């Protein structure tokens, strides 16, 4: 009898397919689950946080106000959860009627009770030892009907049962051996699960693909670099389009009225300007895609022939702006190139309205007032075999951490890096493209990141009024700290921000930038915060887990500033409430 008891699980293990995801023993499935319908995504309830930035507009705003400027001082942690993972935790807690879904590095998804922190299920996708994933992070899951969707480090989209965490289907979209990998959360609209590929430092050809939410079958694929003969292909030479970069690192936003999804695109590669002559469409751009077909309906290229690694990965925020007495549907983008871009959403184009620097920018000498096309200081261009120094650094005025917009204050909040410059050295001879090989064209050992002489701060949170085009306030981080913190703003008049090496998560007054509350977490906070309510109690939630570019910037600044800052690693989900 003992033998039989032992034998049955052994037999089950033998019969399990090789590629089955590793799953922990599951508690009972959720007894109730509210499907996430198109209608709910279009009009999300204030007590939930159904998408990574709260809604299709990507503004990172919660309409909850129980936690507010008057009581935020009494904010305390009510539960926490160790994810068991190292590296960059960047995903937000997504909450649907009391159930929290959260992703971590290494293809893990957790379903937790949003009130108590109890684990409901845990999924981790198996992957090969030699997976290519130089940016070990994941920026969140997407919910649709009764399913959870994850874009994986090995370039798959997986669909899980929201009640149990069990795999429903998986679809491979690209070859990881050639260094295609996913870091973004899927965007879901009209039954299409849209993802895009990272890997720009390895000569990928960036793309956005949509798969059917029910079946996983690929519906369309649009490359960010056109093939010969397609519109924009005239901006490339020879075969460079095949390995020209244009990564899609970050989730798009969606305008349901226009039926268009807006995605930001990465830089062309290899980095030096003369390694890829031409404007290089649609790199360093925002592109507007018809979600039904994937067709590009409009674009705006923030800067042409990038050679500063200024990926314009962030997706513009979608909100209305009033300029010169006219209110229009805008795209607002604090760019990695250090300019704050104001564009107009239209059915068949993206219109340029205005751009001005939000950090000191020494590369652009002018912006064409009609088209927005910049003119460059040629001495600042990185060329093959040449060294150049420029500000802001290659991490830009703002990297991927999303900005937030608060309709009550009418301010957009920007996690910025001011006063940072870099020296880059172009390789004298760039090795030809080979799949899976680094394809950057700089000598990384000669890269030097440093603060501008006399600088008093680096990381800051800025607030801008887009109607006037003026900065309202700035909160500079103390001690020359950096800011890799995605922002959340709330109807309670608050802006939540982490991102610093001092491990703090803090609340600022959304009206004036005054520091109202702060809490030292286990690690550094580089994840998107969220807010939700269960049983009448409002919570603020965020992961803390330092890694990826924030860690890299720390290392580079340690070198140039002769300091030894270390930020401990390891992911923890933190949930706060007022007591």
């Amino acid at each position: 009898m003992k033998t039989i008891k032992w034998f049955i699980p052994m037999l089950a293990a033998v019969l399990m397919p090789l590629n089955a995801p590793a799953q922990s023993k599951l508690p009972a499935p959720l007894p109730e689950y509210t499907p996430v319908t198109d209608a709910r995504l279009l009009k999300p309830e204030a007590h939930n946080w159904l998408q990574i930035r709260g809604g299709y507009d990507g503004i990172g705003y919660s309409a909850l106000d129980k936690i507010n400027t008057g009581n935020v001082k009494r904010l305390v942690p009510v539960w926490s959860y160790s994810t068991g993972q190292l590296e960059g935790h960047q995903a937000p807690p997504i909450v649907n009627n009391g159930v929290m879904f959260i992703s971590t590095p290494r293809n893990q998804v957790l379903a937790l009770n949003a009130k108590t922190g109890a684990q409901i299920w845990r999924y981790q996708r198996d992957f090969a030892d030699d997976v290519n994933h130089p940016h070990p992070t994941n920026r969140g899951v997407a919910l649709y009907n009764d399913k959870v969707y994850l874009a994986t480090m090995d370039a798959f989209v997986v669909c899980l049962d929201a009640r149990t965490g069990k795999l429903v289907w998986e679809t491979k979209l690209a070859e990881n051996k050639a260094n295609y990998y996913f870091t973004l959360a899927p965007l879901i609209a009209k039954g299409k699960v849209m993802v895009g590929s990272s890997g720009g430092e390895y000569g990928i050809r960036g793309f956005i693909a949509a798969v059917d939410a029910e079946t996983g079958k690929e519906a369309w694929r649009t490359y960010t670099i056109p093939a010969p003969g397609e519109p924009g292909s005239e901006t490339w030479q020879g075969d460079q389009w095949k390995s020209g970069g244009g990564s899609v690192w970050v989730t798009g936003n969606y305008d349901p009225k226009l039926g268009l999804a807006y995605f930001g695109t990465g830089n062309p590669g290899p980095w030096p300007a003369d390694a890829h002559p031409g404007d290089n469409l649609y790199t360093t751009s925002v592109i507007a895609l018809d979600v039904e077909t994937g067709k590009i309906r409009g674009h705006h290229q923030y800067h042409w022939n990038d050679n500063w690694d200024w990926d314009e990965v962030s997706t513009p925020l979608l909100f209305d702006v009033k300029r010169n007495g006219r209110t229009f549907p805008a795209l607002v983008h604090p760019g990695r190139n250090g300019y704050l871009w104001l564009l107009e959403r239209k059915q068949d184009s993206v219109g340029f309205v205005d751009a001005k620097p939000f950090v000191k920018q020494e590369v652009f000498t002018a912006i064409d007032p009609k088209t927005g096309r910049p003119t460059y200081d040629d001495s600042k261009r990185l060329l093959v075999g040449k060294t150049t120094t420029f500000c802001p650094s290659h991490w830009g005025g703002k990297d991927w951490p999303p900005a937030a917009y608060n309709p009550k204050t009418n301010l957009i909040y920007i996690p910025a890096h001011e006063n940072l410059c870099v020296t880059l050295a172009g390789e004298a001879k760039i090795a030809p493209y080979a799949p899976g090989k680094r394809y950057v064209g700089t000598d990384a050992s000669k890269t030097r990141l440093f603060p501008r002489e006399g600088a008093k701060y680096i990381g800051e949170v800025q607030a801008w009024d887009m109607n006037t085009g003026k900065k309202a306030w700035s909160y500079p981080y103390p001690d020359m700290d950096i800011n890799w913190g995605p922002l959340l703003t709330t109807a309670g008049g608050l802006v939540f921000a982490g991102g610093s090496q001092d491990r703090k998560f803090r609340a600022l007054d959304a009206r004036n930038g005054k520091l109202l509350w702060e809490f030292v977490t286990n690690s550094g906070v580089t994840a998107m915060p969220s807010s939700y309510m269960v049983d009448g109690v409002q919570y603020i939630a965020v992961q803390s887990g330092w890694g990826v570019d924030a860690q890299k910037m720390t290392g580079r600044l340690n070198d140039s500033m002769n300091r030894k800052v270390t930020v401990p690693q390891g992911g923890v989900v933190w949930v706060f409430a007022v007591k």
Partner: protein
Amino acid sequence: MEDRRTVIKAALGVGLGAVLPEVTLAQADPRNARPQDGDRFVITEGDRKGAVVKLDDLKTGAPPITVMPQDPANGTVRDGSRLNQILMVRIDEARLKDDTKARAAQGVVAYSAVCTHTGCDGLSWASDKLWFKCPCHETEFDAADSARVVNGPAPRRLPALPLKIVEGYVVAAGAFIGRAGVTAP
């Protein structure tokens, strides 16, 4: 190597293949197998791409070369996995620490070219300090001292590959010491 293949065949023969870890089966393919005692090495980039590495190819003071192992029995290059990328460099023997010297062949040392932190390759070389530096998160490894971590976030050294010289060729004298690639939860 033969022993392991025999074990795998035996396991498959009795229908237990499904319980073996995927990585083990993948390594049954000689292209995916990690370097083994007796393997030669092939240059993977530059003008001499494809050439089999001889001792004379490595000059003291020259920068490292990136190579992949080759099964000498049939010439199969083990290029099926990025974890087989190996950095090889020749260092003045007087500068090698004892453990490193014991694994070296006439000053030639070899290490996994994949950083143990997040798995990046393309490490650069500081010829004065004899350090490798990862382009992703700045970890520096001392090539003269078992590729131990000198600076940066990597949790452990680069796995070393013991070497010997056979008929003028640089040849593996064993397997990687430690697992190549990232070790994480």
